[in-house]
């Protein structure tokens, strides 16, 4: 019952529409819209919650208790903040490229929202079951680089420009090891379909068979999300807030929330690729699959936050050097070892 609750709801709507005499084509369209809307709402609410969670985690790790005034236990803190930010003036400095300056915070949410349409939240729970889902995720994710850059460039501020150049070099450099790391997984599964990747982990999660790939992927994901220890883009002690420096009000809030949306994607992808997605460990199948997915995802998100509130920030040359000199060769070696391992595995027929 719980397991299929979302699918049941979808089917119910579909039947309802069908019985109302809506043609099949339109029915599909409406269903797609419903699904995507659900995902968007989910992400937005989650982003709000994640801001709260981050502040709570930070507080607890720093011997304080975090927000606790607005709403029960401070739950409505982010909502209040957003309310405040919306009501604030969006300051547009002189000489900025006005259109791009305003466009960037709007566009920044597009890639994460798009990516979420292919992520399987549970058994048979994905908006679009794309054949090359993994590829799709990376293709879309690479777009956000451009949008960060737009924000930074259009601000007409040297710190923003420095930050946006950092974003580009950082995200471009870490995309490579990230994909190369995943090649090991892809080789084992033989498919780019995310649900197939999950199903291939039935016997053992890939974190066990591909630990190096997991490590590389995770590090690269942290870097792609611009999180500590790779948060050079913001680096508030160096370049104030990087591309966000000139943003105020809702523009800033959009960037801020988008960061959390990106974290969600990173952790969802980690879950899907290495932690068995919605598969239940130890045969605990009475807990619905989507719940498992969220549990795993939140564990990964917690690790993200844990890292952030523990580590200092690396330097730009160290960051790039680490990416190119350590992660890329390591991921290549991983591919090589995986290939040999697979060959031996098949040759021996174990």
């Amino acid at each position, binding site marked *: 019952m719980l397991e299929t609750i979302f699918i049941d709801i979808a089917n119910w709507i579909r039947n309802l529409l069908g019985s109302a005499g809506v043609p099949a*084509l339109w029915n599909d369209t409406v269903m797609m819209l419903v699904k995507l809307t659900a995902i968007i709402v989910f992400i937005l609410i989650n982003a709000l919650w994640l801001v709260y969670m981050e502040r709570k985690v930070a507080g607890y790790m720093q011997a304080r208790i975090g927000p606790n005034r607005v709403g029960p236990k401070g739950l409505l803190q982010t909502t209040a903040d957003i309310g405040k930010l919306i009501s604030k003036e969006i300051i547009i400095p002189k000489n900025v*490229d006005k259109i*791009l300056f305003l466009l960037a915070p709007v566009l920044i949410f597009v890639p994460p929202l798009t990516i979420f349409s292919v992520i399987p939240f549970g058994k048979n729970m994905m908006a679009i079951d*794309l*054949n*090359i889902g993994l*590829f*799709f995720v*990376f*293709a*879309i994710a*690479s*777009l956000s*680089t*451009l949008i960060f*850059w*737009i924000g930074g*460039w259009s601000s007409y501020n040297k710190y923003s*420009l420095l930050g946006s*150049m950092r974003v*580009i070099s950082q995200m*471009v450099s870490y*995309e490579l090891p990230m994909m190369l790391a995943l090649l090991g997984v892809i080789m084992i599964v033989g498919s*780019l379909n995310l649900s197939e990747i999950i199903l291939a982990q039935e016997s053992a999660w890939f974190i066990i068979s591909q630990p190096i790939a997991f490590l590389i992927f995770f590090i690269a994901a942290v870097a792609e999300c611009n999180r500590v220890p790779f948060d050079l883009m913001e680096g508030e002690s160096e370049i104030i807030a990087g591309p966000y420096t000139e943003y105020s009000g809702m523009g800033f809030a959009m960037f801020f929330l988008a960061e959390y949306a990106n974290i969600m994607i990173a952790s969802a992808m980690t879950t899907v690729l290495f932690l068995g997605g919605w598969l239940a460990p130890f045969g605990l199948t009475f807990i619905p699959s989507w719940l498992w997915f969220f549990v795993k995802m939140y564990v990964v998100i917690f690790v993200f936050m844990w890292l952030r509130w523990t580590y200092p920030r690396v330097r730009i040359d160290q960051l790039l050097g680490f990416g190119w000199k350590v992660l890329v060769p390591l991921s290549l070696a991983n591919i090589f070892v995986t290939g040999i391992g697979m060959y031996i595995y098949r040759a021996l027929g174990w």
Partner: protein
Amino acid sequence: METCIYNVIAFYMLAAVILGSAVMIVAVRNIVHSVLFLAACFISMAGIYLLLDAVYLAIIQVLIYAGAVCIMIIFGIMLIRRADMKESNLFNKQTKLAAGVVAMTLAVYGILAGKTAWTDVTSNVPVPADSLDKIGGLLLSQYVIPFEVAALLLTVALIGAIMLAREVKADGDN
């Protein structure tokens, strides 16, 4: 061939976006805007590829063109700083002449495209569903030498680009 009204609508919308942004790329005076229009153009081109059942190419298009080529160009622009970005993308002296040539090219192209009897060669076989497998297989069997050559080309281009853009040592003591 399944024809769906969505496809038609999508085609016209995408074509409008592509052509619109292509015109803007050429017309806009700020080179950065030009690049951003280029990105928009590339992404909608991916949509066209989807319509053409080339899913893999659509993704490649986004990944390489929008994700890599655009960023590379932006990097290039950032390295070539100029005083006023706003006047960075102007027309040159032979614009009118060029317009004439282009108009003629377009006319010839159009006439030829209109004249050709496409229906004769069109086959009604649908594109196989597992295109990714097929392309992968072909690339590594029948087209393996071009594939390797392309890899070599990329390596050569990489090295060449690095050599060209390498820091020029001033006085040799830097």
